[in-house]
């Protein structure tokens, strides 16, 4: 009876693992923070299930489980609970930790139960090492490209800010021309807001959506994360630009590495599956 219940639990966990991977991929298709936070709640539920799974396995398999490579995989896939407990405040860390969850797919090695523990452990460690290398490369490349893109965006915005100021100061009546300034600054592609403080302390604000301040703030909260926005200051001018499109490019690299990791796993699984059958 206990064995049947344990098999049913194994099956449920296998389904949850597939769901977890689908949810991880789903993240890349959502734009608004509200939707992503909803996905986060599902992810939290899955993490709790995984922790529960570790407890069940410990109570059923005891020391045998602690010695197996499955235990290492299970613990790694639960690490993202750290982000759920809000230990790291930056959203990016949560995503990196969640990436580790993919190692759980290695547990499908249970399908070839006829395999010797040596083959299963070799499969688990080859898979774990491969997945970690692919995921790390993906994350590193994504981070590298993101930094380069942001630097180039900052450079571009600065240049246009300088031009805008030059244009505004070059008006015929030798006074600062707001008209020239706004016309020029509008060439910043992802501009959301510009704020200029005059010499007399007067602050002039302009947002490209032509919304009232409260509505504009709501729009920002609804559509952007903190790291999707970039403040650039030059002299007495503050601009707010969106770098969500740049983050999306970086995220896309992560997505490719995730897909590549899945593909790697399927090939590895096929190799070990046939190896097992030949040994039988």
């Amino acid at each position, binding site marked *: 009876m206990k064995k049947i219940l344990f098999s049913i639990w194994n099956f449920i966990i296998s389904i949850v693992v597939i769901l977890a991977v689908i949810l991880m991929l789903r993240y890349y298709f959502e734009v608004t923070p509200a939707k992503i936070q909803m996905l986060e709640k599902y992810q939290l539920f899955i993490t709790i299930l995984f922790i529960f799974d570790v407890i069940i396995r410990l109570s059923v398999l005891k020391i045998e489980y602690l010695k197996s490579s499955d235990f290492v995989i299970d613990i790694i896939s639960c690490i993202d609970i750290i982000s759920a407990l809000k230990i790291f405040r930056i959203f990016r860390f949560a995503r990196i930790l969640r990436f580790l969850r993919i190692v759980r797919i290695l547990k499908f090695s249970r399908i070839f139960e006829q395999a010797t523990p040596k083959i299963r452990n070799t499969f688990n460690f080859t898979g774990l090492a491969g997945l970690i290398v692919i995921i790390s490369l993906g994350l590193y490349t994504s981070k590298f490209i993101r930094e380069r893109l942001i630097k180039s965006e900052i450079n571009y915005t600065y240049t246009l800010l*300088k031009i805008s100021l030059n*244009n505004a100061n070059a008006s015929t009546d030798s006074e600062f021309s707001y008209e020239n300034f706004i016309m020029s600054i509008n060439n910043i592609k992802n501009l959301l807001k510009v704020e200029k403080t005059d010499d007399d302390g007067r602050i002039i604000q302009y947002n*490209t959506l032509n919304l009232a301040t409260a509505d504009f703030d709501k729009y920002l909260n609804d559509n952007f994360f903190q790291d999707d926005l970039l403040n650039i200051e030059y002299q007495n001018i503050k601009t707010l630009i969106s770098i969500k499109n740049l983050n999306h490019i970086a995220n896309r690299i992560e997505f490719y590495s995730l897909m590549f990791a899945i593909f790697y796993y399927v*090939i590895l699984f096929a190799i070990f599956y046939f190896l097992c*059958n030949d040994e039988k």
Partner: protein
Amino acid sequence: MGYKRNKTKKVMEIIIFLIIACAIGFSFFSMDESLDVVEEKVNKLTVSTDNRPSVAALKKSIEKMSADEAEDAYLKYQQQLSR
């Protein structure tokens, strides 16, 4: 007889794995296309320069930002995030 059955089973298994690999490949390309749509959505969150009430750029000499200035600006951005 048994050898033949084993061989057929193995061929079937290879075909199943190939189908799974093709399915993953196919879903990858279709998801990649969907990501293009997401990219368009992301771009629409900011009003493009063409639609803003602005006139054509006033051509002036372009002052290039130095590498140090770009570095400083990037560090400021990192500080914003960690705040």
